[in-house]
């Protein structure tokens, strides 16, 4: 069913990761992304892997959920890994059979690429999508972008557009499902027939969906006007975000991870090189 799609899905919870301030989480994620791309030695990848595993365990998100979230990138993951293994032509020759030649560097690059992608996807989804509600997340983004308002960037409007978009994803999904059922009940066949036929079947969903999206937009605009909405100026928040002591600790920790990764890059011995004989 359509609802099964984990589209940046939030899992309510009470773990230490859930409690981190959204702004801190966004900065942490950015720092960790930089760390992932800076990392080059085996030690730094090991550190990143341990850090992301710890963050995941602390969030108390089930392993199943994480795996489900990784599913869409399985193809990319396998493809890049195989590409590295078979097309790298440096290092010592390990396997030479028919047209297949596997070099030591190929395996090392493949491992690094694999860890890089896994760490990247799992930390961003655990830190941001699984443990932060979309509304809090937009608040966080708005908070971080506030300085831009000084140079006349309509930060509040951006944030509003984003939170409305996020708010209506489940509504529109639900509506899509309902319209699809209604059209199925009239004999629409979405899964068989020629391409032309299927495109026509989808038309029966898109037209009513578009009409209802426009209807929602007008209704929401009217409702906001009726409640006296007049843009971001002078607007206060019910739940003000507080940057607490612990959030600083988390930021410092992620900065420490970045520093650690950079330092470990300079360690002359690389465990991966040792294992694959160089």
């Amino acid at each position, binding site marked *: 069913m359509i*609802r099964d799609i984990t589209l940046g899905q939030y*899992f*309510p919870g009470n773990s230490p990761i859930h409690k981190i301030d959204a702004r801190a989480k966004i900065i942490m994620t950015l720092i960790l992304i930089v760390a992932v791309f800076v990392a080059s030695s085996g030690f730094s990848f090991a550190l990143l892997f341990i850090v992301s595993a710890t963050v995941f365990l602390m969030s108390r998100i089930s392993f199943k959920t994480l795996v489900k979230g990784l599913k869409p990138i399985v193809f990319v993951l396998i493809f890049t890994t195989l590409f590295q293994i078979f097309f790298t032509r440096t290092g010592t020759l390990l396997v030479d059979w028919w047209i297949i030649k596997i070099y030591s560097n190929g395996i090392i690059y493949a491992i690094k690429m694999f860890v890089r992608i896994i760490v990247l996807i799992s930390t961003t989804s655990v830190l941001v999508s699984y443990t932060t509600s979309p509304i809090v997340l937009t608040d966080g983004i708005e908070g971080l972008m506030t300085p831009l308002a000084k140079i006349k960037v309509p930060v509040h409007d951006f944030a509003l557009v984003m939170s409305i978009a996020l708010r209506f994803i489940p509504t529109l999904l639900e509506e899509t499902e*309902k*319209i699809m*059922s*209604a*059209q*199925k*009940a*009239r*004999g*629409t*066949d979405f899964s068989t027939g020629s391409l032309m036929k299927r495109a026509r079947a989808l*038309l*029966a969903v898109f*037209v*009513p969906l578009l*009409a*209802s999206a426009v209807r929602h937009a007008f209704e929401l605009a009217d409702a906001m006007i009726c409640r006296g909405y007049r843009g971001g100026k002078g607007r206060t928040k019910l739940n003000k975000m507080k940057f607490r002591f612990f959030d600083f600790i988390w930021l410092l920790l992620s900065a420490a991870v970045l520093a650690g990764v950079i330092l470990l890059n300079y360690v002359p011995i690389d465990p991966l090189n040792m294992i694959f004989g160089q």
Partner: protein
Amino acid sequence: MPIIFENVSYTYGANTPFEHKALDKLNLIINDNEITGLIGQTGSGKSTIAQLCNGLYKPDEGTVYVDGVDINADKKKKKENFFKVGLVFQYPEYQLFEDTVEHDIAYGPKNMGLPEDEIKRRVTDAAAFVGLDAHSLVKSPFDISGGQRRRAAIAGIIAMEPKYLILDEPAAGLDPMGRDDILSKLKEYQRKTGISVVIISHSMEDMAKYCDRIIVLRQNGIYKCGSKAEIFSDPTALREMGLSVPQITKMVYCAEQLGVSFERPIYTVDAAFEDVMKMLDGGDGNDT
């Protein structure tokens, strides 16, 4: 042959944090050639039942029989069930999409693969039945009024000439006149064709006025099913479930407390009016 539910269970979002059991081992029979009313509080599983009847939902447990056949047994016949059990969703006007009302009504019959002239006949019949004139048939479904759109959507299902017709809140959001109009037309249609019709509604008045048999649902189960007299005999129990007897029945009950006696149980305003008039006529006769 009736629609039969045998030990049917259905759960929404199984194995997610949002799991919700809508139906639990439900047994239910929808009889032939009558109008069945399905009533119950929000969340009692009315719409779920509707979508189980035509095979849009597959029960987690148990079997749904239509015409004596398990509708989920043969995947290839899935489409046939949609045509056999016509389902009008809640607010069906939002599913219209063709360029004209006429084409939209023809959409279902076209999917059935009927010949052109048969489609034409069905569209004309269905439109005439719901009261859409030739003038609005050529208009875009986005250009006609809400009430007209509702009619067009219902006509779209009726044009498939299903053996069973299920309507989820067909009168929701209509004005009293549109409400009476659509429901009495449905009753007329049922009497003329002899198909079985299921009406899902929140309104006890509508149930009393248009249904032959009523099924009252409570949270994941059936509370009671039977004739109007059987259902409305226990107003206290109904009230406990957030439902009530028709207003006129309440009023007649009060009148009886004051010493006015009615010859029969009263469920509709029309019946009450008739009886009161009779009483006035049959009193001492001086009034006329």
